[in-house]
Every structure is written in C-alpha cells, then in structure tokens.
C-alpha cells in the first residue's frame, strides 16, 4: 500500500491506462480533478482523418503518418499497438452490452446535430445506422424541450449536401413535463418502456418514406442498444443516435463502463483530487500531492501515468503573461513561444490554432523529456492529449489518440516494472 501505481486524469487515456494496470494486477489509483472530456465528446473515437491523407483506407493513412512523423505517438506504438488498443476497447464495450463498431479499415461518415458530416473510426453500434453511405431518406427527430438539437436545421443542411432528409419535432408524452430538461432527463426516460412506446408510436406515424431515423444520443444510460431495438420494432425504421452538445450521454455510458471494469480489476478511482505538484530525486518521481481539505494528500509513487489532457482537459494551462505550463507535475512543454503566437488570425482557421498543439515531449517509451532531450522522470509516462502529437485537432487524432496511447502506456508500464511491484 505504501507506494502505488498512479494514473492522473479520468479522460479516455487515463481510464485506458488504469484498466491496463488494474488488469495486470497492479491495483492502480486513478486521481483526477474532475471528469474528463469524455463527458463533452460525442462518444465516437476519432483516430485520424487528416486532409493530408485523403481517400485511402484508415490503416494506410496511419502508415503514411507513421512514416512521415517518426516522433508522433502513433509512430511509437506502430500499427500493431494501435490495433491492440482498439481491440481491447471493443471487447470491453461489447462485454458491457454497449458494443462499438468500425476499426482501422475506414472512417465512417456520420451526420452531426447540425447536419454536417463527420468522419470517425469507431462508433457505438447505436450510431451505426447514421452511416451516410447507407442511402435512403433520413428522418431527424428531436424535442423542443431538448436544447441545441434542431431537426429542421440538421435536415436542411443534409439536403444541401444531397442527402434526402426531413426534420420533425416529437411531443413529450403526458406526465413528462418538467421545469427544465437535460440530456440526462431524456436518457432516464428512455429506460422506461412506456416512454419508449409513446415515442416509437410517434416515429411510426411521422416516418413517411424515411428508412432511417436519427435521434439525439439520449437513448438510455444502461441499455441503449435495447432502447434502439425497441424503437426500431415499434417505428419500423432503423434508428441511430446523433451526438448532442455536452453533457454527453454516450460519454456517461463510457465512464460507467470504465469505472466498473477498473474497480472490479482492483483499481481505485478518486475524483475531485487535483494533483498540484510532484517530488522526485535522481530522475525518479517519488511523491505526488493532491489537493484535499485542509492540507494536501501525499501519495508515494511507484510509477505514474500523466493523462491530464490538453488545454481543454486542464492538464495544460496558460496565464495572462503568456506562460504555458503543465498543471500536475510541472513537466517541460513544447508550446508557442509567445502569446501572440497562440492563435491563428481567424477563429475557424483551416490550419487550427497553434496553442492546441502544445504538449509534453516524450521519448519512444512515452517518458517526459526536458529541453536537452533527457528523461525527466524514468517512472513517469505520458498519454492522451497531454502528449506532444503534431496537430491533433487538424489531424482529427483526438479521442483515438487518447484511447490508444492510454492503453499502450498502461501495458508498457505494467510490463517494464520490476516484478516486486506486482502484488
């Protein structure tokens, strides 16, 4: 108990690392300030969709990137490492009754809540019927009460892209009126057979010539596949989920699945504990300190995964002077030199904003490096958006990067550790 494997961060990368360590019998402790960006994302896993590698199978694009950028985290994992992580994630979600489809063959193109088209590598089976290649007329259905999801607008945008679509609003059944509504309220209601029945009937009436119906991704927390099946039965059309604005119900489902799997395998999850600093000697991290009531909590570190995310996740922070720093262990970063260089000239600039490429430089074992190229701590590895990884936003190598590096680093750490740590 005295020294422990510690994972910092509860995003996809931290969760995958903690799972790998727990399954290796290392009883990791996962510390996080709050929930990760998992609660904000659509729940799809975007591995790579770069304009630099258009019109080719996903694994070919990945191979190109691996050759072109040998220091990219993907290059350090190689295609096999990426595939292993994807496999583990697919078996995990399948076992939990929330299977993901897709893989390294190709990106599937899905409609967003705005009716834009978005490529992704892995998607929950509940979103699969959204694949634009499937053809036929799409009905987009939503609720006035669920904010930021406008079926007519989504349909109009799809039509403008030559995808036949119609948008309709559904009526909340009697007894479901509230002062306020959130994606969670709907998710809980969809778990009730009566609610599903009422909505399914409306969909059947409104369906017309549509063969597929897109609904906001709020179709239950525990058994969304069951909800989709029910609605398909009643409405007579294929049903698919479309990600909403945050909070993300698919993200909540993932968090529940990981929480369960990690704790069952002997890991511990401690949310609400921000790591403020670390203490090391001779290139080894020995302690970390997390924020707690009245005084810091001190943790003795055997080894540590830093999975604190980038600017969005809170792992990288900036201040008015233009300083960019890593928040947990104060590791050296690669970031734009000055504040003036953080942003491109336009908000929606095609090249993206340089500040979002800031990250911790690492060696080929994902250990943090200082400006002279020396390993800072030999027992620390970095995963996810905290990593220096080219331009992840531009490459659309975002949650995919987190998922694969998280698993890779967790397994790497589990196999590279001295045996006495495994209890």
């Amino acid at each position: 108990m005295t020294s422990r494997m510690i994972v910092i961060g509860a995003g996809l990368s931290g969760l995958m690392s903690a799972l790998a360590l727990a399954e290796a019998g290392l009883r990791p402790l996962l510390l996080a300030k709050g929930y990760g960006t998992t609660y904000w994302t659509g729940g799809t896993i975007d591995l790579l969709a770069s304009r630099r590698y258009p019109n080719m199978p996903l694994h070919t694009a990945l191979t190109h990137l691996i050759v072109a950028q040998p220091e990219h985290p993907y290059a350090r994992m190689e295609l096999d490492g990426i595939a292993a992580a994807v496999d583990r994630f697919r078996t995990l979600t399948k076992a939990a009754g929330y299977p993901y489809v897709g893989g390294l063959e190709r990106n599937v193109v899905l409609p967003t809540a705005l009716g834009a088209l978005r490529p992704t590598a892995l998607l929950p089976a509940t979103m699969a019927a959204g694949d634009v290649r499937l053809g036929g007329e799409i009905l987009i259905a939503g609720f006035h009460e669920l904010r930021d999801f406008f079926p007519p607008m989504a349909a109009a945008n799809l039509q403008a892209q030559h995808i036949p679509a119609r948008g309709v609003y559904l009526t909340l059944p009697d007894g479901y009126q509230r002062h306020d509504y959130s994606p969670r309220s709907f998710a809980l209601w969809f778990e009730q057979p009566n609610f599903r029945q009422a909505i399914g009937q409306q969909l059947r009436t409104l369906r017309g010539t549509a063969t597929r119906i897109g609904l906001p991704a709020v179709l239950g927390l525990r058994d969304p596949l069951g909800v989709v099946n029910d609605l398909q039965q009643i409405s007579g059309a294929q049903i698919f989920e479309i990600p909403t604005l945050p909070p993300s119900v698919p993200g909540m489902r993932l968090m529940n699945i990981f929480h369960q799997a990690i704790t069952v395998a002997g890991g511990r999850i401690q949310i609400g504990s921000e790591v403020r600093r670390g203490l090391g000697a001779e290139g080894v991290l020995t302690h970390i300190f997390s924020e707690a009531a009245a005084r810091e909590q001190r943790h003795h570190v055997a080894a540590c995964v830093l999975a604190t995310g980038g600017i969005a996740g809170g792992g990288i922070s900036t201040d008015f002077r233009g300083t960019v720093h890593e928040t947990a262990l104060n590791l050296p970063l690669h970031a734009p030199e000055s504040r003036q260089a953080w942003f491109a000239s336009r908000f929606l600039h095609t090249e993206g904003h340089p500040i979002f490429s800031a990250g911790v430089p690492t060696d080929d074992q994902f250990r943090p490096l200082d400006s002279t190229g020396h390993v800072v701590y030999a027992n620390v590895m970095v995963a996810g958006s905290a990593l220096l990884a080219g331009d992840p936003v531009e490459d659309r190598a975002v949650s995919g990067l987190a998922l694969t590096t998280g698993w890779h680093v967790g397994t790497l750490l589990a196999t590279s550790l001295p045996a006495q740590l495994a209890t």
Partner: protein
Amino acid sequence: MTFIIPSDHIELSLEQSLDHCIKCNICTTACPVSAVTDKFPGPKYVGPQAQRFRRPDQDTPDASVDYCSGCRVCNQVCPTGVHIAELNARARAQIVAQKGLSLRNRLLGHSDWIGRMGASPLAPIANMFLSNGLIRMITEQVIGIARHAPVPAFSRYTFRSWFKHRSAPTAKGTRKVVYFHGCATNYYEPELGRIAVEVLEHNGFEVILAKQGCCGLPLLSNGAFADAQKYHEYNVQQLLPYVKQGIPIVGTSTSCTLTLKEEAPDLLGLHSDEIKLVAENTYDIFEFLRLEHEQGRLDTNFRPVALTLPYHPPCQLRAHRIGRPALDILEMVPGLRLLESTSPCCGIAGTYGVKREKYEIGMAVGAGLFDFVQRSGSDLALCDSETCRWQITHGTGVTSKHPIEILHRAYGLASPSTGG
C-alpha cells in the same frame, strides 16, 4: 436581522470560481438530487448561474437552492474546479439571514441541545416517546420533521461520562491524540467512542478527551452561519492548546472532521492562523491510521475476519478528497472483503432527509444504495458517517456500523461492555 456574508479572500475565490464555469453541465449529470426531483434545477443553475444575480442588498433570485443537499458531488466532478456546493451553502445562508430560521431547522441545527435532553438514564422513556407513531405524526404536522425519517435512539449514558469513569483509563504515553467524538457518539453511540479509543490505545496512543462542542455542521447546512461560528470558535479555542503541542485531533465522525478541517473555515470565511492550525491538524480516524501505517507504526497483526460486507463511503468523507482510507487499512485484514458502493449519496445528507418536504427526495436519492446493500445479502453494512448509517438501516433494515468496529474486531479487542 442582517448577516454579512464574509468578504474575505476565500469569498473572493469562491466568487471568482464561478467565472471558471464553462456551462458544460457535467455537474448537472452527476447531481443526485436533480436526478430525482423537479424541485431542484441542478448545480449549474443554482450555483454559478444564479450567483450572478445574488447581491447582498437584494432578494435572492431563486429559493430552490434550499433543495441542494450539500453532498458536494458536483464539486468533485466539475472539470474546472467551481466551488458549487459552497456557493449554494452561502446562498442558503443569505436566505436565512433575510428570512430567519424556522423552528424546525433551529432544532435540527442544534443536535447538541436535543442530545443533552435525551441521553440520560431516562433515555428509554425519551426513545419510547420518539418512536410513538402519534407523536411522530404530530411532530411532522407541527414542526415539519418527516414522520418516517430515521431518528436515532438516545443512549442511557454519554460517551464523556463513560470516558471519565472507566476503570482502565488510558495509559500515559509519549504519543497523544485528542479524540473528537462529536454529538452522535456522545449522545447516541457511545460504544463507537469506546471502540475508537481502544483502537487508538492499542496502537500506543494516550487518548485525551478535550472539551468540545458540536462541530456546527448541522447549523451550517441549515444556513445558520452566525450560530455555527460560535461553535467553531469555541472548538478552536479548546483544541488549540493541544495542536500547539503537536497533538493531533482525531475523529470518528467524518462530517465533524470535515467541518473542522474545511467547511467551517471556508463557509464562514474564518482564516486566522489559529483556525488554520486546528484545521491542518485534524484527521478522520482512518486517515490518521493510514498515515501511521505509512510511517510503519500501525499494528498490522490482524486476526482473520471472514466477512464480505458492503461499504458506503459517505459524501462527507468524499468531500475530504483523501480517497478511501478505511478500505486502504481494512484491505489488509485477512478474510475480509469490502464491496464499495458507488452511489453518490444515501439521501440523508445530515438533516436534509428528515425534513418533511425532503424526506421522499432523500429516500429516492438513496434508493440505489439501499438496493446495493440489500443485494449484497449481508446483515451488516459499513459507513463512516452516523446519519448515513441511520439512513442505510432505515432504508434497508440492515444494521450499519462504523468501519472502525471491524478493525477493533481484527485486533481481537475485548467484547462490548456496558457503559456506566
């Protein structure tokens, strides 16, 4: 009556913390109260959002904040560190400052008054009175305490009287701790105090019983800040001489220790060196034992305890942000398996779930936990907070104990004696 909400630097950081809110609604998905009732719109709305409309000289924009149970789940999940629960607690205090405190909440806030009246050789009579259905119905109608809500039974003796008169007083040693027992141990569960003392003594500590009052949490959570401040200042005065000598304060009530550490100083805006010193030297008992173990000083010569038990880390323990110290220690006991509950809250949240208008909400919040405890098939559940133990027993019929009782058993310490 005017009550000035403190304008100190913590207040400032509280206020500023709402500027960190990015409206992501993660807190809304995690709040156990807004999940079960339409009366409470959720942390984001009553916290960082409504706060913009709260001014000391104006009426508060929305009274729904009173339905916040103070479980602090929102604080823990918020990715940007907004102090939502504190904003809510202060907003409630502002309402109380403007509108006054109801008789019911005044009574609930003063757990020490009630305890002092009931815990005596006449306790059986008081208990009969309290378990009488008619009387409970009248109390519900007149005062507003839910008739089915769990109320603990008074003890015939107080912990303090037992401690003072016990036959084998604590051995004088070089290593000392002050035991903070809190109201519940003193008036309702003196056995727990005895067990904690024996575990500490078993590990070589001299246990000191300092003068102490109620920690003030029931008042804080009912918005009666001015009254709570008196208690806190009294406690600090009593405890200060000990911490100045390097003697730590150790408590078995995780809500009392949280109040000494953080709730009282933060909510009341009290940050003198004395108050900080007491806060920094206060420990939840398993947190303390875990530190002892890290120093290699804890006796880990445990007897097997062949049990599989459900364990609920209460929301007040989670608010310490120290992990699960009870699990860290008890996982070393051979044969013992603890099943950790992931339910955010049992629903009682101190005095919240005993109020007539909130009782049903509390029971709905706790439903997941009750189900977890019942499905475990165990006839014993563990939890570090007294009010939560009473609620678990109320919701499941399963006996609930503080986890220290299992450690006591693992040390093979004497079987329960009757107090005196």
